[in-house]
């Protein structure tokens, strides 16, 4: 977040408590608290594509932790804050540990279970005083200052909201932010760029948990009374509804949604009993209907509708001021070194043999083309080499060492980059951001420093590197466009630029020339020759024979999962087995 926006938020945080009438001070406090939880959920749901129906229990854990410490153990609130946030973080980490490798809906389902479990524990553990709750929680203190006035509390809450918001915005505008966006529906691509998606998902989940814990700490000292009810499943669902109603894809969806839900709920509580003549949870019914309609008609939430800024291009990324030194040359390879060696690899899907006993190798400074009719098993072989699927039999050696049981991000880290037959880009992000995803492994700075904006020099270097790779492929004029708006051929080129950002020693290209015009193909061929001269090994799957035959040093031909020929382009072209595979048996 830019400093002016943050300062404006901070200004509101200080001014609002001074001018609001007393009733609204309390209401604004609850909106602020809900916003903090909802911000975590935006990161989790809207940005990283996971979700949780159990955030209220994190709020509860921290609230009870600080209550026990300050009310019964006479500790200052700061200890309550540290312990509360630490405990929620650890619980979230453990829960993430057991679900992070499973599909997204498992986390969501399990969150329902733990939401109910924690709620039931809050209600039954004798030392938490059950549904009678615990009152007389001391107010926030800092040295001699004591926040016994709700207005001071509100100011504290709003300052925290502004800070959490700014930190989230900073995180999203960083190397890890790009990686988090890749978690949402593009995990395989992310893995291939060297992102440990399992670990990163867990980290996002912990951050969302910590935000909820922060809100829980403030809640306890704001309300100065805790009981299990505000931490039940319904409350968790409320937070999620806020995010959906506000808009889960933008951080601003959190305050908008929190405000709408908290204010409307307050109004409903006044009006519905007067209309229907009976009390009940009718506002939940109304909110639920709204959520269903929104997900059917406007899944991006109300914020984009309210602001009428649907499909705005992402803001241009400013050029770097001071870039750290970052070499763009690929890691040196010994000429003639075997970078990839596929040894008797077979891969079966049930009874279908996609690859049978395939053996070939790729050396440094060499372009090898893998060709064959559709369904010959080329893409399966690609996936085996890049670690997406394991071979049923046989071994894959990368740079001389066996690559068994390694996940794609390990393989990427060892110096292998790939593109995809079906382009995998973050269609709604800029070309530059997409290319910079490939530079993920060049960065070292973690989440906390990114949130505090201490990553600028590294970030500038990464973006600079991405720009240089883009320039090599002639993408410079397109850098600020949304990747999804480019024609398919250009999207393939973006994928190549992204792969080059990894500085690979082995480059795997899956049909790079498909959809390119002649001039673009020629340019791509020039680039690939140049990469070869720099020492890179290139393996490409391609259907365009003119392109392949003019470029490749060696051609491997596959048919029905087996290698049927291998050799120099001219040699392969006159091979009878190859002619038969492509043209049918000679009569």
């Amino acid at each position, binding site marked *: 977040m830019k400093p002016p926006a943050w300062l404006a938020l901070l200004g509101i945080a200080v001014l609002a408590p001074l001018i609001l009438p007393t009733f609204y001070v309390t209401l604004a406090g609850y909106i602020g608290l809900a916003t903090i939880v909802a911000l975590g959920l935006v990161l989790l*749901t809207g940005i990283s*594509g*996971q*979700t949780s*129906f159990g955030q209220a229990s994190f709020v509860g854990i921290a609230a009870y932790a600080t209550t026990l410490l300050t009310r019964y153990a006479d500790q200052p609130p700061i200890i309550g804050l540290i312990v509360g946030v630490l405990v929620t973080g650890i619980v979230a980490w453990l829960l993430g540990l*057991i*679900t*992070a*490798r*499973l*599909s*997204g*809906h*498992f986390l*969501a*389902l*399990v969150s*329902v*279970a*733990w939401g*109910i*479990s924690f709620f*039931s*524990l809050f209600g*039954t553990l004798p030392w938490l005083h059950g549904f009678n709750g615990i009152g007389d929680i001391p107010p926030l203190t800092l040295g001699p200052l004591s926040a016994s006035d709700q207005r001071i509390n509100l100011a504290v809450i709003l300052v925290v909201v502004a800070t959490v918001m700014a930190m989230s915005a900073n995180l999203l505008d960083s190397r890890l932010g790009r990686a988090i966006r890749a978690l949402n*529906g593009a*995990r*395989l691509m992310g*893995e291939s760029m060297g992102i440990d998606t*399992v670990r990163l998902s867990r980290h996002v989940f912990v951050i969302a948990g910590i935000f909820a814990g922060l809100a829980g700490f403030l809640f306890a000292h704001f309300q100065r009374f805790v009981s299990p009810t505000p931490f039940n499943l319904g409350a968790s*669902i409320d937070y*999620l*509804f806020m995010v*959906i109603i506000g808009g889960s894809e933008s951080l601003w969806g959190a305050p908008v949604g929190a405000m709408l839900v908290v204010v409307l709920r307050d109004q409903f509580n006044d009006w519905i009993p007067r209309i229907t003549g009976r009390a*009940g*949870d*009718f506002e*939940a*019914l109304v*909110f*639920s*209907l709204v*959520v*269903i309609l929104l*997900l*059917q008609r406007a*899944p991006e939430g109300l914020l984009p509708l309210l602001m009428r800024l649907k499909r705005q291009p992402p803001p241009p990324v400013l050029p770097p001021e001071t870039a750290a030194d970052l070499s763009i040359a690929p890691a040196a390879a010994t000429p003639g070194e075997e970078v990839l060696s596929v040894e008797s690899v077979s891969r079966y899907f049930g009874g279908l043999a996609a690859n049978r006993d395939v053996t070939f190798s790729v050396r440094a400074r060499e372009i090898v083309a893998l060709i064959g009719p559709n369904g010959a098993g080329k893409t399966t072989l690609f996936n085996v080499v890049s*670690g*997406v*699927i394991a071979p049923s039999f046989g071994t894959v050696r990368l740079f001389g060492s066996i690559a068994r049981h390694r*996940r*794609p991000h390990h393989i990427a880290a060892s110096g292998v980059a790939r593109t995809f037959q079906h382009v995998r880009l973050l269609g709604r992000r800029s070309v530059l951001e997409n290319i910079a995803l490939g530079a993920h492994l060049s960065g070292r700075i973690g989440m906390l420093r990114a949130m505090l904006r201490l990553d600028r020099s590294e970030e500038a270097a990464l973006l600079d590197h991405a720009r240089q790779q883009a320039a090599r492929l002639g993408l410079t004029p397109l850098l600020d466009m949304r990747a999804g708006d480019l024609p398919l051929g250009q999207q393939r080129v973006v994928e190549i630029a992204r792969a080059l950002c990894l500085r690979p020693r082995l480059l795997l290209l899956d049909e790079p020339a498909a959809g390119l015009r002649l001039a673009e193909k020629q340019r791509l061929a020039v680039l690939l020759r140049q990469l070869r001269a720099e020492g890179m090994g290139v393996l490409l799957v391609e259907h365009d024979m003119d392109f392949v035959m003019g470029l490749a040093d060696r051609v491997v031909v596959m048919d029905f999962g087996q290698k049927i020929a291998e050799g120099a382009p001219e040699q392969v072209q006159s091979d009878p087995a190859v002619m038969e595979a492509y043209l049918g048996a000679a009569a």
Partner: protein
Amino acid sequence: MDSFIFFALLQDGITTGAIYLLLAIGLLITFSVTRVIFVPQGDLLAFGALTAASLQSGHVPGTLWLLDGFSVLALVMSRNWLAWGVYPLVLTAAAWFLAPLEQPAISILLALAIVTPMGPLIWRLAFRPVADASVLSLLIVSMALHFVIIGMGLVFFGPEEARVPAITDTSFDLGQLNISGQSLCVLGSCVVLVAGLRWFFNATMHGKALRAAASDRLGARLVGIDANATGALAFGLAAFIAALAGVLIGAVTPLSYDAGFDIGLKGFVAAIMGGLVSYPLAAAGAVLVGVLESLGSFWASAYREVIVFTLLIPVLVWLSLRAGSGEERA
């Protein structure tokens, strides 16, 4: 605890376990065919029980009006006159005339006839417009739907608990043990339903279409299987199973409008134990959940829920270790 109490608890646990199994099957069917995790299935269970109880006391239940309302909306959207026009009219008339008879068998059959079509209606109104969204979005719609349905349940049935007429009130002694006829009815229905589903999936065209859609949605579409029809069928089956479970368990335990969620959630636990894919594993899980809950309520009743959900942890760890890593996740 002596063996007498143990066996009584065991009988109790197996009976509820059978109910969880029914719900787990419904969940697996809807999830594998449409990718929807059908949270409100448990609420339809409560609807089934309360509708039967309401008919039995001579009232025309509010769920019938809900069915009529949903049908009108569905009629506006898809003009299927037979399903959403004629059927609700006939059913409304039938309920009107038959409810005052207060016959248990009629009440139960009418309840099944009222609650079952809510499955396809829910599919048509809530899920079909977003059928291609992510599993997560579908889950959120599902969760919201749960609140809509219990909100309506409160309007129709009030906060009171109600009991369904038992199919049989005989019981007999086996040694020291008293075995209730209703428990046997629950188990028997469960067995019949599982056998029936097995036949349906293996021997009928509709069943095979469902299996095809479950194993490959796109492929099924390409060979001409109508995804909307399979969705409606899957939800219809799930709703029927839920309603049946409701009238069965409603005779053992009195239920209130919001009791279904907990029961449904335990069906989930069972289904997750089956990895959301395997029916036999889900069956074992369901019985385990039922028995554990029953024993847990004896030893540490306050921590019953916690014990049941803690069961999930080892299962998830196991699933995690087994899970592939790089595959694309929904």
